């Protein structure tokens, strides 16, 4: 196994909401002398902030975190720092999750049940610029590729949004304020702001009125 630089440590940010699990991951990662865990995040929002601050090489991102999920956080992190590599950690091997993760720019997807082997390998692979799937995922990716449903990036920018982001777009188009949306979806106003920014970024729109127009064109609201 070769590393990009013998003396340069791979700097990893660990985003996982559950403390026990996070500590377990940290121990596994730190067992490898080439890896340094430079930070820990418990929510997607924290992950985004930490990335801005610490500029890690690799982010190990749990899929389901409170407030902002791993998928949205991944997209946001990559928007600000495209050079950062993200590996998604998940309990689910559903095709939907895997596909979305790759659509949003994740380079790796590993399942939590084989973590002690996969975690270090995935971090190393990503640091070297490769992709990595857990063996349990590979067949899904392959089947999807065969069926033609697996695409790196969807042509329709709307399809690049996560469900949460689509919900937020729908609510924005209905004229709801960030505060109202936050109450409706039971998340913080900051998180709504992140979703809103992500939606505008993804759809390449810059004003609320344009979002409303887009929603009308999409048939999300009636003209």
């Amino acid at each position, binding site marked *: 196994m070769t590393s990009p630089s013998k003396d340069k440590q791979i700097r990893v940010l660990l985003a996982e*909401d*559950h403390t*026990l*699990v996070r*500590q*377990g*991951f940290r*121990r*596994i990662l730190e*067992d490898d002398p080439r890896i340094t865990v430079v930070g820990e995040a418990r929510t997607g929002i924290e992950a985004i902030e930490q990335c801005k601050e610490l500029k890690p090489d690799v982010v190990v991102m749990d*899929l*389901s975190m409170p407030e902002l*999920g791993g*998928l949205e956080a991944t997209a946001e992190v990559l928007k600000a720092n495209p050079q950062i590599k993200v590996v998604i950690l998940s*309990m*689910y091997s*559903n095709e*939907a*999750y895997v596909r*979305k993760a790759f659509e949003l720019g994740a380079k790796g997807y590993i399942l*939590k*049940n084989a*973590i*002690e*082997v996969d975690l270090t390998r995935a971090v190393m692979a990503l640091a070297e610029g490769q992709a990595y799937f857990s063996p349990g995922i590979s067949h899904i990716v392959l089947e999807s590729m065969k069926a033609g449903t697996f695409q790196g990036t969807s042509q329709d920018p709307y399809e690049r949004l*996560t*469900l*949460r982001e*689509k*919900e937020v*777009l*729908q609510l924005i*188009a*209905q*004229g*709801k304020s960030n505060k109202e949306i936050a109450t*409706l*979806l039971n998340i913080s106003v900051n998180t709504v702001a992140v979703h809103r920014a992500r939606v505008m970024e993804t759809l390449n729109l810059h004003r*609320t*009125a344009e979002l*409303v127009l887009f*929603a*009308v064109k*999409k*048939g*999300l*609201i*009636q*003209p």
Partner: protein
Amino acid sequence: MVRADTEHDVLSAIPSPSARLWLGLGVTLTVFLIFAGYTIREIRWLEDFQVNVVQKNRKASLQLLRLQDDTYQLAVSLRDMTLPESRYPIFYWKGEFTRVHQDMDEALRLEGQYSASTPAGDEKRRQLRDVLDDFWLSSDEAFQLADQGHEETARYMIRSQLESKRENISSIITRLLALNDQAQTEAGQQVSLTYGRVKRDILVLIGVLFLVAMGTGLYTLQANRKTFDRLHHLAERLQTQSEELRMLSWKLIDVQEKTLRQVARDLHDEFGQILTAIGVTLGRASQKALDKDPVFVEDVKYVKKIVEDTLQSVRSESQIFRPAILDDFGLGQTLEWFVDQFSRQTGVLVHYKGKLSDGFFLPEDAIHLYRIVQEALNNVAKHSGAKEAWVKVAEEAGALSLEIRDNGAGFVMGPESNRVAGQGIGLMGMRERAEHLKGSFSIRSSPDRGTVVSVTVPLKRPSLNHAVQEVS
């Protein structure tokens, strides 16, 4: 509690107006019959009265006039008989006198038949008969004298006696006529009096019938109003009760959903994560000891397997309670995933057709559509014996339509109470969920023809005007 009384009590509290209506009808008919009988009697009496009194009186008067006419003829004859220049002998008038005598007797007999008996009238009649008898005796005497040749004596007798007697007769007849006329007037008055009474009676009858009918009508109206008020009240209460029932049933579903979500989250987030942490640590331990202690590594691997199996159970349990994919990817993908899972677990081949736009249903609403599909397919697996099923989802005309169909045994559609208890509750739950989303739910089935569950739910698609106003 006021609520405790049942519908039966409310129903029995409505008094039936029938008894009083029957009574009203009975009273009306009785009054009508009594009055009708009375009036008929009055009219019949009037008829009799007219025939017996008035007609007879009139006939009697005619006879009296006949008598009077006879006396006038006698007067003329008596005058001619006594004229000095008369050229005819007295016996010449004898024939006429005999004829007038017969006529007057006949008239008197008839008058006696027709006349009503009154003290004054009877007295006058006796007088009349007496003076007539006297007159005829005198006239016979006069004719006898004339026959014996005493013409002048006879003439004298006629002049001195017969004429005055005739005048007496005439005045008595006039008196009787006057009496008859008086009786006639009185009878007329009585008739008009009776007519007036009958008229009044009929008016009273009509009035009483009108009042009774009006009373009955008003009572019916009021009874009707009361009945309708009570029915309205009853309907309102039934509606309230059924609304309360529905609210309760909805509350049940809502609480169940919240509980399942919480349990799923706890299972996944707490136990799942702890098991993951244990698994991770065990994995790390075995990695570390890989070359040093093979027995330890074996044991750790064994324990790790147990942990992983447990984790797997926890995860699938949590997915059954509440699929995380619904919150992360929405209804469309959840249905695809579920249908696939279901086919593999039950061996029922489910064909899924349809594409759903995301973002129309928040997970809190989407879960109900998911549960409907879940329940319907569970019924297919449990009851229908079908080998194939079809799930169709479509968006059209601002609504989402959902159809779950199978080719199984089906069942006889009937009152929900006739079904197996669990199935009925399942159907009720599906209906409740559809109605909560302002949609409609229907189920069609017949033996050996399979079952079709259809749900239509409006898509929440607010209008632009509304949105723009709020944005600005």
